[in-house]
């Protein structure tokens, strides 16, 4: 028996993306239910980032539909998608190294729907990551890798997203810090934010996710309840290093 699911907040239908003549995604379809953590896993070059880029409006799919809260957002400019409630913390952290920590956070709030909540969100970010508070006036370029990742997440939260896309938040971080980041992702999810999490670290990602999607060279190999995927022999062999 599958538990009763909330409504679908984000859904991709037959999305194909081309980079010139190279096809990055082949007819990708999946649904994200409100309140879930959905993880996209798969090897390098499998198309995980491309999927997130297509959702955020950074690349335009050649075919297919991307529905967010019931509206097709294909062709909507990237900055407008953020103001509709979908925000991405991109691969490689992607923070403004030439701006201070506080300035990065401030820009994260550019498209926030509720301007009143600005200070509360800033405080919440600093509460999640006290180190950022100490370094608020420091240039983001001077932060350590882990701190930069924290900033990327805190900044994304400033936009008060309904859906948060995280592209490999654990990349290049020490195990204890990864642990901490995953805990915080769960906390954010518990506060009501739907999360689409891209991870190389499939085992850990599937452990915190409700739903898992396995990518292989631009196609969805398999998808299902995260716990089921964790138990599947085939998946364990191919992706979890068993």
């Amino acid at each position, binding site marked *: 028996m599958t538990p009763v699911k909330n409504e679908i907040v984000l859904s991709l239908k037959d999305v194909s993306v081309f980079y010139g003549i190279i096809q990055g995604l082949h007819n990708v379809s999946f649904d994200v239910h409100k309140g879930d953590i959905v993880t996209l896993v798969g090897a390098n070059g499998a198309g995980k980032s491309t999927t997130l880029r297509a959702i*955020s*409006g*950074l690349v335009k799919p050649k075919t297919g539909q991307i529905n967010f809260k019931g509206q097709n957002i294909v062709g909507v*400019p*990237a*900055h*407008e998608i*953020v*103001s509709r409630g979908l*925000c*991405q913390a*991109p691969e*490689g952290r*992607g*923070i*403004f*190294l*030439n*701006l201070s920590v506080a*300035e990065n956070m*401030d*820009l*994260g709030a*550019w*498209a*926030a729907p509720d301007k009143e909540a600005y200070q509360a969100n800033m405080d919440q970010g600093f509460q999640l990551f006290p180190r950022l508070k100490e370094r608020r006036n420091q240039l983001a*370029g001077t*932060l350590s*890798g882990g701190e*930069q990742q924290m900033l990327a997440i805190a*900044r994304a939260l400033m*936009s008060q997203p309904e859906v948060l896309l995280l592209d490999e938040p654990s990349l*290049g971080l020490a195990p204890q810090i990864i642990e901490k980041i995953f805990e915080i992702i769960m906390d954010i999810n518990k506060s009501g934010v739907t999360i689409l999490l891209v991870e190389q670290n499939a085992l850990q990602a599937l452990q915190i996710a409700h739903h898992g999607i396995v990518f292989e060279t631009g196609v969805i190999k398999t998808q299902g309840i995260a716990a089921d995927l964790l138990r599947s022999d085939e998946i364990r062999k191919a992706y979890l290093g068993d």
Partner: protein
Amino acid sequence: MAEFFQYVINGLSQGGTYALVALGYTMVFGILQLINFAHGEVYMLGAFTGLYTLRFFGARIVEFYSFVLHVGADQTSTAAAVMTAITVILISMVTCALVGYFVERLAYRPLRTSPRINLLITAVGVSLFFQYSGQLIFGSSPQPYPDLFENLESWTFGADENLLVINPLQVFVFATAITLMLILRHVIFHTRLGRAMRAVSFNHELASLMGIPTNRIITATFMIGSSLAGAAGVMVGMTYPKVEPLMGSLPGLKAFCAAVLGGIGNVTGAVLGSFILGLAEAFLSGYGAPTYKDALAFAILILILLVKPSGLLGVHRTEKV
């Protein structure tokens, strides 16, 4: 000694106008990696906007301020002249901001995803377009600029060899340039628009992921840079005091050299480079070699490209992985 100070004053005044032009180059480069060759022509259009404003409305604006500020005949004329100059500069800034808006929208934005060389060629095209349509509309012969400050006495200090002459116009130009730079500094470093400009110049895609409308920020950058060039155009017109449609090309190139000297993309660098160039030119012409004055900027450009291509304050971005 007085001679030395005289050159310093000349150099600072000249450097101030270079800086206003150089800032536009450096801001647009910072955000689009484009050398906007049409920028010198925006400065020329600024000078002409000032010229026609003064020619057709100058007397009335002076009259207006004399009436509003009536405080004894002497001060009235000084204050009215200064206020008129400021008004004309503001009108020119607004006009040039609009020019910048249209140049960006019509010429550069359609090429946003094209190879950079297309953009560069377009910039040269826009520059030629303004030079030749300027000749068509304004005529190609130099036109005199009305002298607002003609009744103002220069301040003199010392006598004979030690005579130091400070021209009120030079003081006005320097003060206006510094004021505009301080305002710009405030906008860039202490407002949300400025923060967004720095974010977009760091990475367009990333900025758009924050919900920042990058195209609008780029347009705003063009408008701000163009308005500063417009202010410079009026002040140079008042100083030299002739303007013609090709007047933008040499100062434009010099200001570009100054921006490269300071480190292109860096606003503080553009100001520093401009003052260095202004002072160097003043000393070179003062101490014996005025014929080489116009070559100096290019000599500096070649030198800096050989020695430190990133410029004096050039940034090396270190990306952490």
